[in-house]
């Protein structure tokens, strides 16, 4: 099968490469572009470890073909750090509130939390739980993940207010 040329924006930078059309976005990210933040947990569209942000939507990159991603804007957990490379607010809150144990689900969780808080800057606990229902964690029991996301919301809102 001949390869196709793929081009998209990844964490603010233009990237391109050749790939067979059957290549899944997660494999292109991890194996061709060496961007290994997004993980492969189940490979069956269930766990959310492979979540990336594509044109402002959280998507499971194990269930997207590279061709479908052509021309899009993609953000992975690597793109959620501050400009100087230090941890971004959500990343910092996950650290502070023990929102991870083994850390396998964390890149997907944080990328999903980012989109959730963009859409709903003041979520209730229930809205956070409903909003991360597509991300499975086998370690934490979710309590501290929910805490970390609620704390991120608070901090992001405080920063927004301070800037205004």
């Amino acid at each position, binding site marked *: 099968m001949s390869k196709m040329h793929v081009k998209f924006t990844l964490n603010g930078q233009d990237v391109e490469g050749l790939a067979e*059309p059957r290549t899944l976005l997660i494999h292109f990210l991890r194996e061709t572009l060496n961007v290994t933040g997004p993980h492969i947990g189940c490979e069956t569209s269930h766990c959310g470890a492979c979540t990336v942000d594509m044109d402002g939507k959280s998507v499971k990159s194990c269930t997207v073909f590279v061709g*479908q991603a052509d021309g899009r804007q993609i953000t992975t957990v690597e793109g959620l750090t501050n400009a100087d490379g230090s941890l971004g607010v959500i990343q910092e809150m996950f650290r502070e509130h023990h929102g991870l144990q083994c850390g396998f689900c964390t890149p997907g969780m944080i990328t999903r939390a980012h989109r959730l808080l963009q859409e709903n800057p003041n979520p209730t606990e229930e809205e956070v739980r409903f909003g991360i229902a597509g991300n499975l964690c086998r370690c934490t029991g979710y309590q501290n993940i929910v805490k970390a996301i609620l704390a991120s919301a608070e901090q992001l809102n405080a920063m927004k207010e301070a800037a205004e």
Partner: protein
Amino acid sequence: MIPAGFEYHRPADLTSAIGILQEHGDEARVVAGGHSLIPMMKLRMAELGHLIDLQDIDAMKGIAVGGDTVTIGAMTTQHELIVHDGLGAALPILREAALQIADPQVRYVGTIGGNVANGDPGNDMPGLMQCLNARFDLTGPDGSRQVAARDFYEAAYFTAREDEEILTAIIIPIPAPGTGSAYIKQKRKIGDYATAAAAVLVGDGTASVAMTNLADTPIWSEAAGAALAAGDIDGCAAAMLGAIDPQEDMRGPVAFKKHVAAVVLRRAIDSALSRRS
């Protein structure tokens, strides 16, 4: 979990997409959100030579709320159904059902067109579309035709759509003011397909009832609707439970499924009646 190889196409309009379907016959399949098709391709349960991505066809997107009907482009995502402004008022049951489908990531990309065209008895929209008496707009090489949702489903994964036709839009009549509606779904966990689900509309002397994942097609029962319209809840339940034909699978044995079906149906009827005004 790597699918077999295929050629990828991304046509800019409907005519080109139909052209590619015609050229490659049953070697070609369209992809919308891909969240039913890609998992099947990864399992090698679907193999195809040509994948036609519909994402650039703007004419297949969008929601138009009219006076009597709502028209929804097939490429409209579940997420777009949920956040749309006017749709929640015109067809609250659509939002209620969409929120019970899968999880946020799947709802961002999964489309209403893919959900109804797929033909999987587990999909939630087909039963709801039968309850609402929706019509599907199909366009092929010879032009367009409409098929009622109630005539569309033939068997699991077999529908009235011809291989060279594309489902472009769904047209749903808006129920009369005061009609109560409810979509109740029992699932093993969030993100799961239904063990059983019921869609109920009940108005002034009118009613419509359909159920999901209890046969190899969705089940709309005219007799159940007629009984409920006449205020006969027991008669409605008896007609509906007589019409379903659940099979044993990992969601449970037949007796259990019938039990769950009876429970969700009662809940949906109660809820729809309580919302009637």
